[in-house]
């Protein structure tokens, strides 16, 4: 028994890939999930970017904006850009940046809101605050609605109370001089409490009328969300199949001697690599197409409405995945090494890049780290096509990054392939 333990220990001690798979990969995954769902990353709170349009420009709206600005969970954008002196957002520009995915949500404080509260206080549910939301991020919408209620309650209780008294007088008759004096003494306390930010004095629950508007106006929201998951899972498995295929194409052929035979023909190493890459890319295109067709047949994925964008993203994604597979296959010395290393890399990239759960659930810093992964760029492109109905030209950042990666990967694979004497 002791001998068997010794054999196992010696093999594990000398197999770095096995060590990484056994100890490192679980830690990496634990850290990613803990960062996303436990918010244990560097910036403890995932901040939601919110565009705010103040059409009312009243005391109430000013205080609501300030109340929202104090929230740790939000990062407000009131101008058309991040510059402090940029012009204020209007409704159209706010809707546009939600549609393009720059922010997940926008809040429009409508004209007349302050006046309605001054007149009717708690009962003023019109005009309603409008929340322009991208439903692909349901968390942002719900969180902002809650924080809006909180902002009104804690930032402007005095204004609401003053309006409420007016409303009361309309129904119940004028207050006595003594009652007026008591209200006059209480209102500054409410205002002071609001200024301190502790919401002193806000007792009764009062409702702010909120309209949530789906700015994506997707006819088939379910189908579009399914396309997101199809892309997420599809890209992850595309990476697995590309790496496996490249391993078969190079490592197995090197071992069997067919690579040597190919290299003794006129085709040369460059030709072999391009030929293998092209085949893997075509298989990748077929793999993603089958996946999306299945989604169309079984889950009503809106494939046929987005054929050009789908083709662009699928071709460029498959090309880049195949090129990454070639790099890993030329880097690895053995099949076992390739399999272990690529499993770690692909699962990590898929977790960080949004294949396992959407990146908008992650903190901002994690989202930035995610951009270092292959998956994030591919998934952002599919999201643009199927969710945002973006025109083809808007895919240029994804196409540029993925095609640059393809060229870099192929160049690296060519250099690494010199070990086979090509």
């Amino acid at each position, binding site marked *: 028994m002791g001998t068997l333990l010794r054999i196992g220990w010696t093999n594990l001690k000398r197999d770095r890939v096995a060590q990484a798979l056994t100890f490192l990969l679980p830690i990496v995954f634990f850290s990613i999930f803990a960062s996303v769902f436990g918010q244990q990353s560097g910036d403890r709170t995932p901040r939601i970017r919110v565009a705010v349009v103040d059409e009312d420009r009243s005391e109430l709206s000013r205080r609501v904006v300030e109340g929202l600005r104090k929230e740790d969970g939000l990062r407000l954008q009131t101008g058309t850009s991040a510059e402090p002196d940029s012009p204020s957002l209007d409704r159209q520009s706010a809707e546009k940046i939600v549609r393009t995915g720059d922010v997940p949500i926008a809040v429009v404080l409508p004209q007349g809101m302050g006046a309605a509260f001054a007149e009717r206080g708690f009962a003023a549910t019109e005009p309603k605050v409008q929340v322009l939301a991208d439903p692909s991020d349901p968390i942002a919408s719900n969180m902002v609605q809650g924080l809006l209620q909180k902002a009104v309650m804690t930032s402007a209780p005095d204004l609401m109370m003053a309006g409420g008294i007016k409303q009361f007088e309309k129904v119940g008759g004028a207050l006595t001089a003594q009652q007026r004096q008591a209200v006059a003494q209480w209102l500054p306390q409410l205002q002071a409490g609001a200024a301190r930010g502790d919401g002193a004095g806000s007792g009764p629950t009062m409702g702010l009328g909120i309209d949530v508007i789906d700015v994506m106006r997707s006819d088939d929201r379910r189908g579009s969300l399914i396309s997101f998951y199809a892309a997420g899972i599809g890209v992850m498995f595309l990476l697995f199949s590309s790496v496996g295929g490249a391993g078969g194409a190079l490592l197995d052929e090197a071992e069997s*001697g067919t690579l040597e035979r*190919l290299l*003794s023909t*006129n085709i*040369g190493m460059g030709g072999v690599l391009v030929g293998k890459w092209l085949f893997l890319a075509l298989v990748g295109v077929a793999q993603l197409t089958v996946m999306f067709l299945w989604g169309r047949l079984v889950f009503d994925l809106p494939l046929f409405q987005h054929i050009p964008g789908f083709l662009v993203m699928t071709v460029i994604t498959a090309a880049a995945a195949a090129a990454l597979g070639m790099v890993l296959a030329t880097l690895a010395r053995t099949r076992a090494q390739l399999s272990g290393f690529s499993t770690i890399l692909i699962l990590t990239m898929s977790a960080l890049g949004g294949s396992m759960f959407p990146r908008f659930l992650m903190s901002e810093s994690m989202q930035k780290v995610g951009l270092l992964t292959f998956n994030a760029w591919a998934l952002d492109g599919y999201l643009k096509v199927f969710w945002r109905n973006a025109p083809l030209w808007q895919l240029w950042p994804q196409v540029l990054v993925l095609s640059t990666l393809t060229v870099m990967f192929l160049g690296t694979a060519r250099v690494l392939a010199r070990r086979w*004497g090509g």
Partner: protein
Amino acid sequence: MSVLSVVDARKMFGPVKALDGASLELREGELLGLLGPNGAGKTTLIRAIAGRVRLDAGEIRVFGQPVDGRRTPPELGIVPQEIALYPLMTARENLAVFGRLQGLTSAELGRQVDWALESTGLKDRANESIRQFSGGMRRRLNIACGVLHRPRIVLLDEPTVGVDPQSRDRIYDVLDDLRGRGVSLLLTTHHLEEAEARCSRTVIIDHGRAIAAGTLGELVEQTVGRFRLVTLRLDAAAGQAATAEIIRGARTIEGDPSDPRLLRARMRDVAIELPPLLERVRQVGRSVEDVEVKGPSLQSVFIHLTGRELRE
């Protein structure tokens, strides 16, 4: 006429000297055996000739043209040591893909594939997956894939390794067929008997150098001479004094350090020289259990040149 020449080829892989001044010459239409133990540099030399390894120094010429180590000269056909075939393809499909990669046109391809299937005896199995083939059949197909484009020189790296004698004969039938067409062949082997029986000439390579070259007769003449090698096995070790008595006056008799019961002697005329030796053994009180008389062979040449058996 020389179709291939290698002069002072040198190649290092890190600290290891794979080739250390190897030279050889392949003549038109001959079957040249490149003989040496594992690690002697045979495969490196073959790969260098094929343009797959760039030499650190030295020169290789194929039909007078230098090989630059970047590409395989079109006059060469390469048959690697491994079964370099696609196992999921049929024999015909394997031949077709390698023929196409060698640059054959569609018309040539059909003709050459039929010829290859015929000459390797695989015509009846042409459309079967090669996973169902025996080792010998795969070896023959392996050779055929390397010669489809009608090369004038074929390099074969251990073409008969791991096959039974019958399959080996069929492989040599294929090679004889190629020689009949004027193709020059260079094959590596560590089968002495094969090199002795099949090759026109042999080059012996060891530690990256060609240490002898020629026909069997030339090699014997250059090294061990026309002696018979006589090995006696005694019933027990003779002891130092007795051994000295046995080999007294005969410079060509020596003991074997690895087995004190063995005595080896080189004799020009066994009938005259063996009886006195047996008599001296009897005189020191020992008897002879076994006597082996061997004519000169590549084995004895190799032992003479390198001081060790080939399969070390």
